[in-house]
């Protein structure tokens, strides 16, 4: 503390200081002064909360959309289901619109038009990210569903299982296992995209960094710090996915 005050005064006065002294002052100012690390920590908390919420929404939407679209395509000729056709059309529009517009624009529309009166910025952000992620996830899952051997569906149906039962007990688990690396990719993109909720006022990590910069007028350390924190989060995430993948591969052991 004393060192920080003394060295900061030297820099302010234009006295010659060593690189180490300058580093120490900037670091202290960015992370320790006025317990600023707590702001980053709160930011990380929001980031994780938003990621988790968006992930749940995205996977849920993704599975529903993928299954409905696959079921629509796999109908027996001459037995078209009208309800299924309706939802298939709705979901196709959903995927087209979400994939065809920038994430940032979606965020601004959700934050300032549709939910302009809401004060829960994190939740609005999570909803936007979840809806966005759902469109991409649905296409990944659809690819996985189509990749599962057709014989699996036939075996399930020949035992008298309903289409939905065969899908959820037999096809979906195998599809998820096959697409886990792509899903991991999507989840990592999602985690990093949470930085965008700062534009609608969500108090996540980037928001915290910018708030600190507006106090200290020093951008390097807060932004580098933010980058490092994201990197660590993604590495933890990747590690957890690896564990999950090994679990799912349990049935592959010989």
């Amino acid at each position, binding site marked *: 503390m004393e060192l920080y005050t003394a060295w900061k005064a030297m820099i302010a006065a234009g006295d010659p200081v060593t690189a180490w002294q300058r580093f120490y002052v900037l670091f202290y100012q960015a992370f320790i002064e006025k317990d600023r690390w707590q702001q980053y920590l709160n930011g990380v908390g929001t980031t994780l909360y938003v990621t988790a919420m968006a992930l749940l929404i995205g996977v849920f939407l993704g599975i529903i959309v993928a299954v409905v679209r696959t079921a629509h395509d796999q109908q*027996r*000729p*001459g*037995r078209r289901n009208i309800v299924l056709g309706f939802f298939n059309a709705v979901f196709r529009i959903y995927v087209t619109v979400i994939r065809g517009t920038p994430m940032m624009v979606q965020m601004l529309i959700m934050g300032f038009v549709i939910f302009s009166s809401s004060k829960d910025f994190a939740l609005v952000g999570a909803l936007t990210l979840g809806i966005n992620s759902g469109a991409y996830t649905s296409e990944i899952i659809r690819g996985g569903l189509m990749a599962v*051997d057709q*014989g*699996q569906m*036939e*075996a*399930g*149906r*020949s*035992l*008298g*299982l*309903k289409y939905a*039962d065969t899908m959820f*007990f*037999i096809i979906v*688990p*195998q599809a998820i*296992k096959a697409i886990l690396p792509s899903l991991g990719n999507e989840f990592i993109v999602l985690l990093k995209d949470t930085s965008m909720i700062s534009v609608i006022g969500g108090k996540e990590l980037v928001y915290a960094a910018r708030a600190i910069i507006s106090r200290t007028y020093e951008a390097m350390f807060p932004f580098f710090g933010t980058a490092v924190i994201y990197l660590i989060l993604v590495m933890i995430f990747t590690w957890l996915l690896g564990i999950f993948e090994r679990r799912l591969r*349990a*049935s*592959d*052991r*010989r």
Partner: protein
Amino acid sequence: MIDVSKLCKKFGETTVLNGISTHIDKGECVCIIGPSGSGKSTFLRCLNMLETPTSGDIIFDGVPMTDPKTDINRMRQKMGMVFQHFNLFPNMTILKNMTLAPVRTRLKTKSEAEEQAMSLLNRVGLADKAGAYPNQLSGGQKQRVAIVRALCMEPDVMLFDEPTSALDPEMVGEVLDVMKNLAMAGMTMVVVTHEMGFAREVANRVMFLDEGVIMEEGDPHNIFYEPRSERLRSFLSKVL
């Protein structure tokens, strides 16, 4: 038990089945032979509506399978099917493979289904594999499990789609033995096969399919030793 009349199936422009009519009695073991592309598998898959016929009728236990209003899931519960490539569910243990359908269709409670699955596994000598995953089994073991998995639904008919074609030669015997015992126990069976020995020995009736029609059918002795059509004679001379 199964009445098939004027069954036709087209895939696009290709006619695979061109008017098949036959009747399969309770307790009968019918073997279907014929060159590849003759429509044997398609015929079998039409019986439980895995393929939707283009025209014609299939009546099973008095219920028209081809009628869109028929509850096809209910009807399939009474028709077990065994596939060339086993099609066990790789994400489940053997026991789960066998109990999933009876439990989900509310045919049995979980403990009833497990008890029955274990006794069936015992019968085919695989009780010690109940907790294993399909990938840990040999081809012959997988196919035996596939057979007893279908039996768990207590079907009235069993359909076999080239059950030994994907197996190593030394594993064919163990699967045929299980099928033989099943036929002996009075199960109604429809078997598409290239195992002429099995057809000769076990079948009550052999059906020779070519170009989507039944060229010749009759008891195995007539088919194999007194073939009438030139087509069947040349087919038999190639496979026997």
